[in-house]
């Protein structure tokens, strides 16, 4: 039995139609912002965490204000690099946790006659616990980044920041060497 031989296909040679469009101009160096980049998602989470520590109307106002600012950072025409805009958004959001402490103090001083909270509720997480929470959040983001995108640059940036937060948390823990390190020293409950 002989194998059937097909006649060779004869395709007509491809010819590209001539371009009618004007010569292409080099695109601007600035990369277009994505709809929801990872850095901005993480920054939004950090802002949600920070504003959740405020109370009442202030919480909602600050969340609206800071997420609008995140949008401004993400679309900042003065910063060409998308990675830099993402890092700026993260720094902006992470630093709000520091600002919230002062905003809370201010709110407490304005309302001194509020009934005191129960003793158990007064124990807020301390700075080390907060930094550990932040580090775990970033580690989760790091893992999700790698699983979803395999983007080496984004992974590297997040990895360096996560490692920095871990080192910072461990350094504070070693420095304090206190069995009650997970509690906030401002509470003075122990």
């Amino acid at each position, binding site marked *: 039995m002989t194998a059937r031989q097909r006649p060779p296909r004869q395709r007509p040679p491809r010819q590209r139609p001539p371009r009618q469009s004007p010569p292409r101009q080099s695109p601007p160096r600035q990369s277009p912002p994505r709809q929801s980049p990872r850095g901005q998602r993480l920054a939004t989470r950090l802002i949600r965490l920070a504003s959740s520590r405020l109370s009442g109307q202030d919480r909602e106002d600050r969340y609206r204000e800071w997420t*609008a600012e995140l949008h401004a950072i993400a679309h900042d025409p003065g910063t060409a690099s998308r990675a830099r805009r993402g890092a700026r958004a993260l*720094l902006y959001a992470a630093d709000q946790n520091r600002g919230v402490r002062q905003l809370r103090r*201010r709110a407490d001083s304005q309302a001194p006659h509020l009934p005191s909270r129960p003793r158990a509720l007064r124990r807020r997480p301390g700075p080390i616990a907060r930094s550990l929470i932040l580090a775990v959040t970033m580690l989760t983001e790091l893992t999700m980044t790698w699983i979803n995108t395999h983007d080496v640059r984004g992974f590297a940036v997040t990895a360096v920041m996560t490692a920095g937060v871990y080192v910072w948390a461990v350094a504070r823990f070693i420095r304090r060497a206190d069995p009650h390190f997970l509690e906030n020293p401002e509470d003075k409950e122990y």
Partner: protein
Amino acid sequence: VKLTGQLERVFLAFLEDPAAPRYGYDLMRAAGLPSGTLYPMLARLQDQGLVTSHWEPQPDDAGGRPPRKYYRLTAEGARTARLELARASQASAPAAPRGMRPAPGTA
């Protein structure tokens, strides 16, 4: 108002155009301050009546951009800022020379 270096930078940023409303990130860049410093400072200035804030009305062509919160110096705030900055610059100006001294070894 106790004028610190950070507050001085915020005042200078506002006084670039006292009538222009500024949003937080804009002020951060102009004053070179981190967010954790700027917002408590703005809240304190607002409590003292030196700064006022308002929400931007949602424009039609915003393209999904959320409305921003804008800050502006009040008239009292602008007056205080100018006064404090003038005081600070006066205090940091070098003292006037008391008189000519002869060069060592010539007297």
